[in-house]
């Protein structure tokens, strides 16, 4: 009889703890994605700075690359910078609204919150990769 009670108690504890564990692992995944995006953050900023430098010295660039269409180049660089800023802002906005201590009496609410946040940061991570690749590729033509 005692054994049965133990088994039932263990089963209850296991089942009761299950959703919390899931919430923690989803939160952990979210944090890992955050660190991954932050690892690319400096690159997003560095490319913005490179573009700003180029925009401020287009006449010098023109002297080095005579075939360059200055106005077209300016427009392309501004668009590129704007895309990088959109990516950066999306990360900043996510960080400022993210609640790392979110809690609720209802386990499903906790899981739902972190799942939502994980999906948001996953999208931002992809956006970062895309913008970095795009700007890196574009900026290679200005390398000496």
């Amino acid at each position, binding site marked *: 009889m005692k054994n049965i009670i133990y088994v039932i108690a263990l089963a209850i504890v296991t089942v009761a703890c299950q959703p919390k564990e899931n919430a923690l692992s989803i939160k952990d995944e979210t*944090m890992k994605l955050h*660190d991954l995006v932050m*690892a690319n*953050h*400096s690159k997003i900023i*560095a490319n913005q700075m490179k573009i700003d430098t180029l925009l401020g010295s287009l006449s010098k660039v023109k002297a080095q690359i005579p075939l360059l269409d200055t106005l077209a180049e300016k427009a392309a660089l501004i668009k590129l910078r704007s895309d990088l800023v959109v990516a950066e802002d999306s990360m*900043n906005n996510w*960080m400022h609204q993210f609640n*790392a201590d979110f809690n609720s009496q209802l386990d499903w609410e906790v899981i739902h919150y972190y799942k939502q946040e994980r999906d948001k940061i996953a999208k931002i991570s992809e956006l970062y990769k895309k913008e970095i690749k795009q700007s890196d590729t574009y900026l290679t033509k200005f390398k000496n």
Partner: protein
Amino acid sequence: MKPLIIAIIILFIIGCDGKKEKLPYLQMEVTQHVVNGKIVEDTTFRTIPKFTLYNQDSTIVTLKDFDNAIYVADFFFTSCPTICPIMHRNLLKIYKKYEGNSEVKFASHTIDVKYDVPSKMKKYAKKLGIKDTQWTFLWGTRDEIYTLAERSYLVFAEENDKAPGGFAHQGYLILVDKQKRIRGAYDGTVDKEVEKLMSDMELLLKEK
């Protein structure tokens, strides 16, 4: 016999003193010059360049404010949920140890310059328990902060390239001597590294 033992002890003490541990210089620069047709190598120390930033009280802070002090520098942002809180919890232990010691300072630079304005950092500092500017939280323009990170404090991290482009968010604590030379870099999230930083600070304070 006794004088011989005393002589050996004295020699031992002198010998040990001569081998006093000295911290390395992380950014030595070797440049080559041609003098009278011969190539001559010149070794210099890279130092932290002049800067003008604002602290948590919106007061201007320059490199001069770190004169006659060793200091620990880092890069962070107030809304960081992972690395920065651990790094600053560890740095707080060091701050507590040296609280009130004018020879030791702390400089945390925000990399989220759009959001972490001085008033935000004031709240952050208060929450951490920092009442004065011995630990200063620095704000500047994007270009100022990232240039300082990339070209001065964290050059070694970028050279190591463990996490391409992510050097500003790796939790490094940088130890700078009184001559503004970088003497050590430590992972602020690892207890052993933080302990090493603390013992290295003691060494650096004794350095003349």
